[in-house]
């Protein structure tokens, strides 16, 4: 057994195993990943999130397999039958390997960081043009939506026109809530005393979920509502039929005449 452990061919073999495991892992992620039951994608933003999850998983596979394959290889090949009778080699380190490890980690981190900063820039872009402003008010345990550009029409079901950029202005009248539309990759806390902003352009018609993501008291689990993404004609007629209510938390939007 001890002689086996001293063989130089271990490195070649373990790297081969690692390469095979990595290829299999990448194939599994690449082909089976899209089958995962993510929430329906209803905005480009959510599509970017799913792309990010996929890319990060692909980058993780070699790292994960490296650790797993080396650990498993050691476990199988270097295992001693009972209490070892002699010690292993007195290797205290390998400065090239340690430096290489740091360099590879830094390169990976730099890639992830560049990726993240690029998409952070994307999601923070303030959309230009005909932006629909929706004021979202969290209260225990309801979401209220007001359309300041449409005479402060108010509703508990969020109606959005398809393919028109939306600015959500989010506030709370009691405790912290968090406004989340899983299908659109939109989430922002509703913090009392503060108005938060987040932007999205829905690109798919249908009915989606709004959930509260910040524990907000006894009925937090039931603080959800629906988003209906509809055509702009339907949107106009729906909003016209809604009751109106004077705003409390939110100032008039810029360019409210649109």
């Amino acid at each position: 057994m001890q002689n086996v452990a001293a063989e130089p061919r271990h490195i070649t073999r373990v790297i081969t195993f690692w390469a095979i495991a990595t290829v299999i892992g990448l194939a599994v992620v690449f082909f089976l990943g899209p089958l995962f039951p993510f929430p329906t994608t209803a905005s480009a933003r959510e599509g970017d999130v799913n792309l990010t999850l996929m890319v990060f998983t692909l980058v993780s596979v070699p790292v994960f397999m490296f650790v797993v394959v080396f650990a498993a290889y050691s476990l199988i090949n270097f295992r001693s039958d009972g209490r070892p009778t002699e010690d292993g080699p007195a290797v205290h380190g390998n400065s090239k390997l340690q430096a290489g490890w740091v360099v590879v980690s830094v390169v990976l981190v730099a890639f992830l960081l560049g990726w993240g900063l690029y998409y952070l820039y994307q999601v923070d872009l303030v959309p230009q043009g005909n932006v629909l402003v929706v004021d979202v008010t969290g209260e225990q345990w309801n979401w209220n939506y007001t359309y300041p550009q449409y005479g402060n029409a108010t509703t508990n079901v969020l109606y959005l026109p398809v393919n028109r950029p939306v600015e959500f202005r989010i506030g709370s009248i009691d405790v912290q809530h968090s406004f989340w539309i899983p299908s659109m990759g939109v989430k922002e806390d509703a913090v009392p005393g503060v108005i938060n902003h987040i932007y999205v352009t829905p690109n798919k018609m249908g009915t989606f979920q709004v959930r509260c993501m910040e524990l907000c008291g006894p009925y937090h689990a039931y603080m959800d509502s629906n988003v209906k993404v509809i055509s702009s004609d339907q949107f106009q007629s729906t909003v016209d039929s809604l009751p109106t209510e004077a705003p409390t938390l939110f100032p008039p939007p810029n360019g409210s005449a649109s």
Partner: protein
Amino acid sequence: MTARYTYRLNYFTGLIGAVVGYLIGYYGVLNFVGQDFQEQAFVIGWIGLLLGWLICIGALKYPFTWALAMKEPDHHEELRLAGAGGGIGRYFRFTTDHKVVGIQYLVLTMIMLGLGGIGAMLIRAQLMFPGANLFDTSAYNTIVTMHGMLMIATMISIFVGPFGNFIVPIMVGARDMAFPRLNGLSFALLTPAVVIFLFIPFLGGVETGWTIYAPLADQTGMGADAFAFSMILAGYSSMLGAVNVIATIVTMRAPGMRYTRLPIFVWGIMASAILSAAGTSSFAADLLLILLDRLYGTTFYLATSPGGTTNSGGGIAWLSQNLFWFFGHPEVYLIVLPGFAAVMEMVPVFVRKPLFGYKTAVLGMMGVTVVSFLVWAHHEFVSGWVPALRGYYMTTTEIISVPTGLVFLVLIGTLWRGRLWMKLPLAWSFAFIWAFMIGGLTGVYLSDVPADIQLHGSMFVTAHFHYTLFGGALMAFFGAIYYWFPKISGRYLNEKLGWIHFWGVQIGFNLTFLAMFYVGLQGMPRRVADYAPVFAGGNFVASIGAFIIGASVAVFFYNMVASWVAGEVAEANPWDSKTLEWQVPTPVPLENFEEIPVITSGPYNYGEPRQEPPPGGIGREEPAPVVG
């Protein structure tokens, strides 16, 4: 055991003092201040409880005698305080012997782990099927809060308490901690903290989750007072323990025990103690402001004062998030760093090889320690707080993966071409590698702002931090207890039960939390008492896994008790380890070393020619001419 000792203050007198102190405080306020001050009465009652406890176990005796310029205790008196000749009774009173305090911590953290575990079982029972079948939503929220905070408090203490006290002073070659009475005091503070924490369900609960964000914390039941008060106490216990550990490691090392010869576990405990000493005060401040808001009508966190107009309060809920996470993020590293270190300590012993890249490991852990203070606002990516800083916090958060990743290099390098002796500590080390790998990689997803905006607050996050904290700290603890139990108790843990425990936890843990990743990606929020039917499958699997974990940990508790009472008696150095704690006899004598050893080499010189210990000495190698 002589008549002299029968009159000593102990936990029983402390219990009486605590009850009397509590009743005086509570009814004192109600009778002399007014019946309306129910909430304040509880807090004053707890202060009475704390003082009654500390006085009646004798924790404050020496500060008083010192302040009154009475006789300074001589060495004989100090030994008596450390429990010399005290028999089993020394475990039931205020004591200064680091080994007794370590065992007291071990018992208390196991009780806390059990209580937190019961909370986990209740949560998973509620979530097994959709429809909030077991508890109403308020009770469920309280259980979530208590499970979270109890487990975090347990994990903070689970290494620094038992092993930091029992093992570390022996490892560095000291006779006790630097400040033995302070050590006794930090344990004496933790016990009432746990007791007061258990008031929560009887005071209307606290429905905030362990993050206790305002303004919900101002609104929820009186349990929030118990939560805040007890966790301030626990925080002080942790900080006092931490400065003591740092002082011990810095000043009490044996001659020749250079920093580069410290066992890696000592470095891990030191890193953890630095985080604890520097970070915990922020949590205490957060909780103090919550208490003031609740009890005295201040508005630190309230934008709107009660009954006032908008923004008349002037406070801001973001402050609550910032103070909390300025503690909260270093705190997760304070929990896992000793776990890293324990695994790096055990692996060389069981593969009979030196630690691969000792200095890399130390630098990695110290790097994590420093950077962990710069990342806290990644918990606030969706809070709206200074959106421009999100890029910065994403950067620091991803940078911290570089020093963290070094741990894996060190472990893999140490395993490679070793002589693997598959005992339970090594098995748990492999489990640690698997679990922390997954926990670490999923953390990268959460550091990415756009992905985090989607995943934040979902079950994905819950699964991620259970992989890091359970997988990184608790699994390492389980390995460490199989490793050090023979030294602590003088007996082996039963190995057969140990393997049942091991495989049960592996199967249950991965079932539970992989299923949680799944439902989290599907879009299930965390901390919900009920959920949509679409998440039913994953939750059912998670609950089954959790019950398997519960059963396995029950086996572990049974094993600990049974082995402590009637296990196989252990040798002094059963693993043939080279660190100092294994060179002293079992049970460890009162002042550890007859003669302080002189250290001439590092702790992991496996594979090098063996040198016989010097006659009469217990140093690892031949003594140097100078003995301190």
